[in-house]
C-alpha cells in the first residue's frame, strides 16, 4: 500500500516534471553552529522540488528542526546559503518571507487571546488584506480543515480539543495562500487516532493546493505514509535521501535499515494477527 501511494504521487510529479519541475527550495552547504561550539547542522545541501512532500526524519538532536527553521529564517545559518525560487533568502525581507511560507508547530502555538477566526486571519491581516476578504478566507479554511465555521469562528483556542487546535494551526499556516508549508512535528502532541486522521488530511490538502511541503518527524510510519521523499538525518547531516520505495528497498546503511525495519516488523506482525483473526 505504501508503495502504491508513493508511486501515485511520484506519478503526479512526473506529470508536472514535463512542465519543468525545478527546485523551489535549495540549501547549499548550510551549517548552523552555536556560540557554545555545538553544531546543529553541518554542511548540509538539499534541493526540494515544487510540489514535493519531503519528510525530514531522524533521532532527536539530529538537526531536522533546525534545518526546517532555516527555510523561513526563524534561524539564520552560520554558513552556506538558502534559496527559494532562485532567490537567496538572506537578501529577502524576513517578515515578507515568513508571510509567504506557512508554518505549523508541534506546540501548535495558537494565540490564546485571539478567537479562532482572528488566529487564522492573522497573516492576511498583517499583510493588509481587506476585512471582508479575510472573513471569506477564514470561512474557506475552516471548511478545508473540516471545522464548521459557524461553530468555531468566534471561540477561543482553549475551548478546543488538541486535534481541533492543530486543524486551526494548519488553517492559520495556509491563510495567506503560501506555496510552501513547513511543519515541525505537527502531530507529535496528538493522540494516535487524531494523528492518523489529520495526517491523511494534510496529505490531501498538500495535493489539492499544490503545495511544497517539508515536514519534520521522528515517526518513520508517518514519514512512509506521507512522503514523496524521505530525508534521513543524523548528527546534523543527511544519511540518505530517497522515495519511500527506495528507502525500503535499499537503505543506505545499518542506521537507516533499523529505522525502516521497525514499522515494517510492526506492520507484518499486525497483518499476521489480522489474518489469523479473520
Amino acid at each position: 500500500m505504501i508503495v502504491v501511494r508513493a508511486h501515485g504521487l511520484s506519478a503526479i510529479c512526473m506529470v508536472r516534471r514535463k512542465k519543468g519541475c525545478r527546485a523551489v527550495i535549495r540549501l547549499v552547504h548550510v551549517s548552523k553552529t552555536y556560540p557554545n561550539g555545538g553544531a546543529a547542522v553541518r554542511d548540509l545541501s538539499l534541493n526540494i522540488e515544487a510540489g514535493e512532500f519531503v519528510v525530514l526524519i531522524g533521532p532527536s538532536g539530529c538537526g531536522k528542526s533546525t534545518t526546517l527553521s532555516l527555510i523561513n529564517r526563524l534561524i539564520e545559518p552560520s554558513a552556506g546559503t538558502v534559496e527559494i525560487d532562485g532567490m537567496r533568502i538572506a537578501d529577502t525581507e524576513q517578515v515578507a518571507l515568513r508571510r509567504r511560507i506557512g508554518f505549523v508547530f508541534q506546540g501548535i502555538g495558537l494565540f490564546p487571546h485571539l478567537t479562532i477566526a482572528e488566529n487564522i486571519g492573522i497573516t492576511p491581516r498583517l499583510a493588509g488584506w481587506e476585512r471582508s476578504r479575510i472573513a471569506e478566507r477564514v470561512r474557506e479554511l475552516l471548511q478545508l480543515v473540516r471545522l464548521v465555521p459557524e461553530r468555531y469562528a468566534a471561540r477561543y483556542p482553549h475551548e478546543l480539543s488538541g486535534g481541533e487546535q492543530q486543524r486551526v494551526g494548519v488553517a492559520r499556516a495556509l491563510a495567506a495562500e503560501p506555496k510552501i508549508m513547513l511543519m515541525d512535528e505537527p502531530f507529535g502532541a496528538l493522540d494516535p487516532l487524531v494523528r492518523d486522521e489529520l495526517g491523511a488530511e494534510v496529505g490531501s490538502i498538500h495535493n489539492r493546493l499544490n503545495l511544497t511541503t517539508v515536514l519534520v518527524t521522528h515517526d518513520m510510519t508517518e514519514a512512509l505514509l506521507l512522503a514523496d521523499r524521505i530525508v534521513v538525518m543524523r548528527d546534523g547531516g543527511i544519511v540518505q535521501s530517497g522515495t519511500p520505495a527506495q528507502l525500503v528497498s535499499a537503505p543506505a546503511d545499518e542506521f537507516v535499515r533499523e529505522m525502516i525495519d521497525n514499522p515494517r516488523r510492526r506492520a507484518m506482525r499486525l497483518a499476521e494477527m489480522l489474518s489469523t483473526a479473520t
Partner: protein
Amino acid sequence: MNGSSIAAAWAVLPDYLGQHVLLSLSAILLGTAISLPLAIAAAHSRILREPVLSVASIVQTIPGLALLALFYPLLLALSSVTARAFGLRIPALGFLPALLALTLYSMLPILRNTIAGLTGLDPTVKTAARAVGMTSWQSLWLVELPLAAPVIMAGIRIAAVWVIGTATLSTPVGQTSLGNYIFTGLQTENWVFVLFGCVAAAALAVLVDRLLALAESGFAHRSRFRLLTAFAGVMLVVVAGLYPLAGAAERQVVIGAKNFDEQYTLSALVSDQLARVGIPANRRSGLGSTIIFRALATGDIDVYVDYSGTIWTNQMHRSDSPGRAEVLRQTAKWLTARYGILDLGPLGFENAYVLAMRSDRAKALGIRSLADLALYAPRLKIGGDYEFFSRPEWSKVANAYGINFLAQRSYQPTFMYRALQDGDVDVIAAFSSDGRIAEYNLRLLSDPKSALPPYDAILLVSPKRARDAKVTAALKPLIGKLNLSLMQRANLMVDRDKRTPEDVAKWLAKNIR
C-alpha cells in the same frame, strides 16, 4: 470637641483629597510611562534586566519618608545648577519632590511584573508570532503585551496602592495630601484628625485597588465590560478628586508653617487676614526650619513666621548676642540684602528656646541657671524637638556652660512636655511662648552668659511677593499686635483644650482688634 473636629476635617477634605488624587495619579502615570518601556527593554535584554531590577529594589528599601526628604536637597542642588546655567529655577518643595519620590516608589512592582509577564510567555507562542510574519513590534503589541496584560495590570495595581499610602508622607516636604490630617493631628494630639486621614487614605487605596483588580480580571478574561467599568470607575475617582482643585485660583499666596502648634495657628491667622481682603491662600504645614527658610527664599512659599534668633544663628551664623532690638534690626537688613526677603516686622512676642525643668526637681537640686545645671548635667537626661540638638544654639549653650548630659532624646514637642512630666527626661528645651510652661509650672533656667539669642517672631515675605503691595498691606496690621501672654493663651488652647489652630486663629484675630 469631636463633632467640631469632624466638621473641620470635612471642610478641608476636598482640598486634601484633590491634592492627594492629583499627586498619586501623576506619580502612577509617570511611573508606568517610565517603567513599561524600561521593563520591555529589560525583558528582551538579559544584560539590562539585573541592573534595572536591582536599582528598583534598592529604591524600594529606602523608607518612604526618607526618599521624599532626599529629593529636597537633590532638587535644591539641581535648581542652583539650572539657575546658573539657564536662569531656570526648579521648585524644590511641594509637588515636584513628592511626585519624583512617589514615581520612583511606584516603579519596582510595575517593572517586576512586566518583566515577569513578558519573559514568562509560552515560547511557542512567541515563535508563532515570528512565524506568521510579525515584526518584533507587531509581536510585542499584538501578542506579548496583550498576553502579559493581566500580570502587568497586577503590578500597576500594587504600585497604585503603595503610592496612595506613601503619598500621605509628602506633607513634610510641603505637598498637601491626606497626610496633612495625620501630621497635623499628631502634632495637636487631635486623634480624630489622625483617624480621619488614615480612613480617607485607606478608603481611596481600597477603592482604587478594587477598580484595578476589575481591570486586571478584564484583561485576564478578555471581558470588555469589566475593562470599561474599571476604566469608567477610575475616571470617576479622578474627576471627583480633582474637581475641587479646578476652581482654586491659580496664583494663590502660599503660607508656610513649621512643625509645631504655634506655627499652625499663626499660618491660619495669616491666611484669614489675607482672605479678609479677598486674597486666596494655601497653607503648607509641617516644614523644618531650614527647609522653610529656603522655600521662602526661592519663592516656593510666600509668607511665614520665623524667629529672629533662628535666622541669626542658623542663617547668619552669628554667635554674639547684641540685644533684642539690635538682632531684629540686623536680621531685617541682612534678609533684604542677601535674599531680597521682606521682613514686615516683629509680631510682638518672643518664642525663645529656654531650658526648663519641673519645679520640684529644680528646687530639690537647687538649679536656677544654666551654670547650676552644668554641675548636675552628667547625671541628667535632656529632651528636645527634632531640630534642637542639631542647631548651632545647642552647641553654643553646651560649650558656653560646659554642659554634658547623660543622654539626649528627641520628641514631638507635645510628647516632650509629657516626657518631662513623666520623668523620662529631667530637662527640656522648651519654647517660651508655650502655654504649657505655666500649665505645668515649669522652672525656666536663666542664661547669665547670654548664650542664646532673642527669638522675636517676625513675619517674612518672599522676594517675589515683597513687591505685592496688596499682600503686604493686608499683613501689616498684624505687626506688633501679639503679646506674649496672648500667644501663650492661644497655644494652650490648642495644646491643652484641643481646639483646632483655625479656631484659635479666629479667637486671636478677635483679641488683637
